C-alpha cells in the first residue's frame, strides 16, 4: 500500500509539504488530478501518479497548466472533486481559464495549488501569486507547515464545494519542500458518481451570461468574506500593545523572533491562514487596542495593504508598517534573522544579529549538464555550424544550463515557449542567423503555437527541438511524445515529427546528436535552406541517459580515455565540449595532462569523434554509468 493511502488511526509521518497536500486531498475525496510539473510543485502530481490506481483517482500529466486547469474544472463541474497544481508561473499560463472559471464556478470542490518560489530557487521570477486570488475573486488559503498543508487542502475542498467556486491553496518553496510531522486523518469510503447537468445559461459564458455571473461572483465574495471572518484558520496568539500580522512560512520566523527577542507579553500575533478575502473585521478587532503593527510577509505587501486599508476604514490611530528599509525586505525569502532585525527595529528592542563569517574565496560549483547529456552534443554541433554570430533564443529545461561557460549557447529567455516565438521576432529585425532551442516537453507545453505563428508569417529561423524523450529537469515526467515508459517502449501517442510536419514546416530533419559528423552535415544543409524565408526544424533526438539508465538498467560496455602520448593539450575538449567527466590534471610523472574520470564517463563517444587522442576502453561487468 502506498504510504500516503494508509488508514488514519492517529498515524504520524514525516511528510514533505507536497506529500501532505496529496494526503489532504485524498482525505478530502479528490478523484481527479491534473498538472504540468514545475518546481516546487512537482511532487504533488508525481505522488498522485504513483497512487492513482490504488486509490481510485484519475491523475494525468497535462500538456500545460492551462490544460490541467480546464480538464480538472470539467470534473469539478460534473460533481467530482478535483485538484490541479502548478508552480507560480504556471498560473500565468492558466490565467485565461482561471479568471473566468471564477465566474462559472464548480459543483464539487476544486483546489488549485499554486507554489510560489521566493528567491527563485528554480524559477525565472518570484511573482507574488496572492494577487491572482484578489484579481479573480476566489478564496485563498495559505499553510505554514506540512501539517497545515494537509488540513487546509481538505478545508479548501469543502470551502470550494460549499461556495461553488475553486479555491487557491497558495504555498511557497519552504512549505512544499519542508518536511514535518503530519497526523493522518480518516479516508473517505466511496467516490461520488459524476453527473453533468445541462445548464448553458450558467455554464456558457457569452456576454449576457457573463454579466449575470459577474454579479453572482461579487455576491459569493460577500459570503466568502463572512466565511473568512469566522474561519479558525485565522487566529491570534499572545498579548500586548504591539502586533504582528503574518501568514505562511513567515509565521514560523515570527514565532522564533517573539521568543528570541523576549517579546512575550508585549507583542500579539495575528496568524492568517484564510488570506483572501482577508478577514477585515478580525484584523480591525486585532488592531483596535494596539499602538503599532508590523506586517511580516514574503514578497509583496499583500497583507500590508489589507491591514492599512482596514486601519484607515476603521479610523484606527495605529501605526502600520511592513516593507521598507530596516524592516521587511520585499525581495527573496525571509529567515529568522531578517525577521528579528525587522521586529527589533520596529518595536525598538535590543537585538544583536549574529556575526556572519565570510567564506574564503572559493571555486564555484555551478550545476551542469550531466556527462553524456545529448544537449551538450547538440550545442557543440550547432556552435560549429552557426558560430558566435547567430542569436540563440532558448527555453526552459535542463538545456537552459547551456547558458554557462564553456558552452554559452543561450542568448534570450523569458518564459516557457518564448524560445520559438522570440526567434521569429529577432529574425524580422536582425540581419543575423537565428537558431532557437526548445525541449520536447516544453515544445508540447507552449512551443507549437510559436512555430505555427513563425510559419504563417515567414519568420526566418532554425528551431532545434532537443528531444530527450522526457521532462527531465523536474524529475523525468512523461509528455505526449514519449516513447520510453516505465512499462516499456511505446509508439508515441503524439509524434513530434508529424506535429512539426503538420504545422507546415518544409525543411525538417531528425538527427541523433551523438553522431557528430552527421549532425553537422544536416545542420549545414538546414543553414542553406535558411536563405529563403520560413522556419526550418531540426529534431535532435537522443534519450536522457539518466532516465534511460534508470528504466532500462543499461550497463556501459565502453568508456573513453585520453591517449596521453598523442594529446597535445590543445584543451579543445575542455573548452568546446565542457563534459564534467574531463579534468585538467597531473600525471604520475608530474606532467600536466587531460584525464577522463572513468566513473563519470557515460560512454557517449562524442569526445572521441572530435579528437583523435581520445579512444575507447572496454570495461567489464561494472556498474552502469550515471546512477
Amino acid at each position: 500500500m502506498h504510504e500516503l493511502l494508509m488508514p488514519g488511526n492517529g498515524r504520524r509521518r514525516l511528510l514533505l509539504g507536497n506529500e501532505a497536500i496529496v494526503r489532504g486531498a485524498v482525505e478530502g475525496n479528490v478523484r481527479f488530478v491534473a498538472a504540468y510539473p514545475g518546481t516546487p510543485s512537482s511532487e504533488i502530481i508525481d505522488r498522485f501518479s504513483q497512487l492513482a490506481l490504488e486509490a481510485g483517482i484519475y491523475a494525468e500529466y497535462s500538456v500545460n497548466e492551462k490544460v490541467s486547469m480546464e480538464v480538472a474544472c470539467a470534473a469539478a463541474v460534473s460533481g467530482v472533486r478535483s485538484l490541479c497544481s502548478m508552480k507560480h508561473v504556471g498560473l500565468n499560463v492558466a490565467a485565461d481559464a482561471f479568471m473566468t472559471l471564477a465566474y462559472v464556478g464548480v459543483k464539487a470542490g476544486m483546489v488549485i495549488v499554486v507554489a510560489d518560489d521566493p528567491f527563485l530557487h528554480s524559477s525565472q521570477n518570484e511573482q507574488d501569486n496572492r494577487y491572482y486570488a484578489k484579481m479573480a475573486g476566489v478564496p485563498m488559503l495559505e499553510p505554514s507547515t506540512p501539517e497545515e498543508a494537509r488540513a487546509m487542502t481538505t478545508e479548501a475542498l469543502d470551502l470550494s464545494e460549499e461556495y461553488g467556486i475553486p479555491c487557491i491553496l497558495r504555498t511557497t518553496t519552504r512549505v512544499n519542500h519542508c518536511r514535518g510531522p503530519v497526523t493522518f486523518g480518516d479516508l473517505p469510503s466511496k467516490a461520488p458518481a459524476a453527473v453533468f447537468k445541462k445548464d448553458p445559461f450558467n455554464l456558457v459564458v457569452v456576454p449576457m451570461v457573463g454579466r449575470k455571473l459577474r454579479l453572482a461572483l461579487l455576491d459569493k465574495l460577500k459570503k466568502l468574506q463572512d466565511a473568512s471572518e469566522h474561519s479558525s484558520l485565522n487566529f491570534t496568539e499572545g498579548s500586548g500593545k504591539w502586533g504582528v500580522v503574518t501568514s505562511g512560512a513567515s509565521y514560523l520566523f515570527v514565532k522564533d523572533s517573539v521568543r528570541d527577542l523576549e517579546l512575550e507579553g508585549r507583542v500579539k500575533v495575528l496568524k492568517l491562514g484564510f488570506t483572501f478575502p482577508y478577514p477585515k473585521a478580525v484584523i480591525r478587532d486585532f488592531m483596535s487596542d494596539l499602538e503599532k503593527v508590523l506586517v511580516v510577509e514574503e514578497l509583496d505587501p499583500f497583507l500590508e495593504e489589507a491591514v492599512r486599508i482596514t486601519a484607515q476604514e476603521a479610523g484606527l490611530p495605529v501605526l502600520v508598517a511592513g516593507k521598507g528599509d530596516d524592516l521587511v525586505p520585499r525581495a527573496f525569502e525571509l529567515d529568522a534573522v531578517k525577521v528579528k532585525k525587522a521586529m527589533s527595529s520596529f518595536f525598538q528592542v535590543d537585538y544583536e544579529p549574529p556575526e556572519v563569517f565570510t567564506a574564503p574565496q572559493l571555486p564555484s560549483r555551478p550545476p551542469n549538464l550531466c556527462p553524456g547529456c545529448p544537449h551538450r552534443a547538440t550545442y557543440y554541433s550547432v556552435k560549429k555550424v552557426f558560430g558566435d554570430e547567430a542569436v540563440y533564443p532558448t527555453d526552459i529545461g535542463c538545456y537552459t544550463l547551456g547558458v554557462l561557460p564553456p558552452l554559452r549557447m543561450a542568448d534570450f529567455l523569458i518564459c516557457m515557449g518564448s524560445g520559438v516565438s522570440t526567434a521569429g521576432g529577432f529574425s524580422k529585425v536582425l540581419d543575423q542567423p537565428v537558431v532557437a532551442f526548445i525541449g520536447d516537453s516544453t515544445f508540447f507545453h507552449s512551443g507549437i503555437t510559436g512555430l505555427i505563428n513563425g510559419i504563417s508569417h515567414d519568420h526566418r529561423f532554425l528551431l532545434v527541438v532537443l528531444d530527450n524523450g522526457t521532462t527531465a529537469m523536474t524529475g523525468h515526467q512523461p509528455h505526449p511524445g514519449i516513447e520510453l515508459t516505465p512499462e516499456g517502449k511505446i509508439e508515441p501517442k503524439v509524434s513530434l515529427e508529424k506535429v512539426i510536419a503538420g504545422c507546415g514546416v518544409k525543411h525538417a530533419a531528425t538527427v541523433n546528436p551523438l553522431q557528430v559528423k552527421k549532425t553537422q552535415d544536416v545542420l549545414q544543409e538546414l543553414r542553406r535552406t535558411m536563405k529563403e524565408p520560413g522556419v526550418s526544424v531540426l529534431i535532435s533526438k537522443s534519450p536522457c541517459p539518466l532516465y534511460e539508465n534508470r528504466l532500462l538498467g543499461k550497463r556501459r560496455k565502453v568508456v573513453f580515455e585520453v591517449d596521453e602520448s598523442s594529446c597535445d593539450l590543445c584543451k579543445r575538449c575542455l573548452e568546446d565540449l565542457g563534459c564534467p567527466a574531463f579534468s585538467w590534471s597531473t600525471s604520475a610523472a608530474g606532467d600536466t595532462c587531460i584525464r577522463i574520470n572513468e566513473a563519470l564517463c557515460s560512454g557517449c563517444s562524442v569526445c572521441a569523434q572530435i579528437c583523435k587522442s581520445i579512444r575507447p576502453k572496454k570495461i567489464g561487468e561494472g556498474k552502469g554509468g550515471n546512477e
Partner: protein
Amino acid sequence: MTQAEQTFQALRIFFTGVGGQGTLLATRLVGEAALEEGLPVAMSEIHGMAQRGGVVESSVVVGNVCSPTIADGEADIVLAFEPLEAARALPKCHSKTLVISSTVPVVPFTVATGQAEYPAIEDLLGAVRSRVASVIEVDTAALARDAGSERAANLVMLGVLAGTGRLPVSMKSWQEALRRILPERVQEVNRRAFQTGYTLGREL
C-alpha cells in the same frame, strides 16, 4: 535522562554537499530519528536546479524552534559532505558551531576544466577551524570502504553526528529510523557505515 537531554533546547543542523552524495537521505534520517524520539522537528530541502552537479543544501531543526530554514550565523552543527562546501558554509556558522566535514574532495567542474584551482584541504578546514568551536574531520571514503561501500559515505557522516551525542536521540531511535527508511538491499552496508561513524563520533 542524560545531561544533554536536560539542557537540550533546540539544535539547528545545516547539511551541505554535492548532488549525488546522499545528503537529502541523511537529512531525512535525522528527521525520522528525531521524530522517533518524540522531539519536535522540521526540515527543509531544495530540489530541482541544485541537483545537476551543483551544491545541495538542506536543514533540520529539532526542539523548541519553528523556522525550518537556518539563517546565516545560526547553525549549531554543520554537516559538510565535502570540504570545499564546509568552507562555503562558513557564513552559516557561529563561534560555537560544531562542523563535521568530510575530507574527501569532489572536484567542481570549474576546477576540472582549469578555470580555478581546488584549495588545499588543510586551508579549507583551517579557515573553518579558525572561526568555530570545533571541527571533526572524517575520511568518509576510507571509512565507508571499510564498511563495505564508498557509496555509504553519507551514513558514516550521519553516524559521526549521532556519536557526538549533541542530538538527544537514542541508539534505538536511530536504528528504527534506518530500518524504516533505507531500502532492504542496502540496510546492512549502511548500518555498518553508520556504526563506523558512530564509533568515531563517540571517541571524540
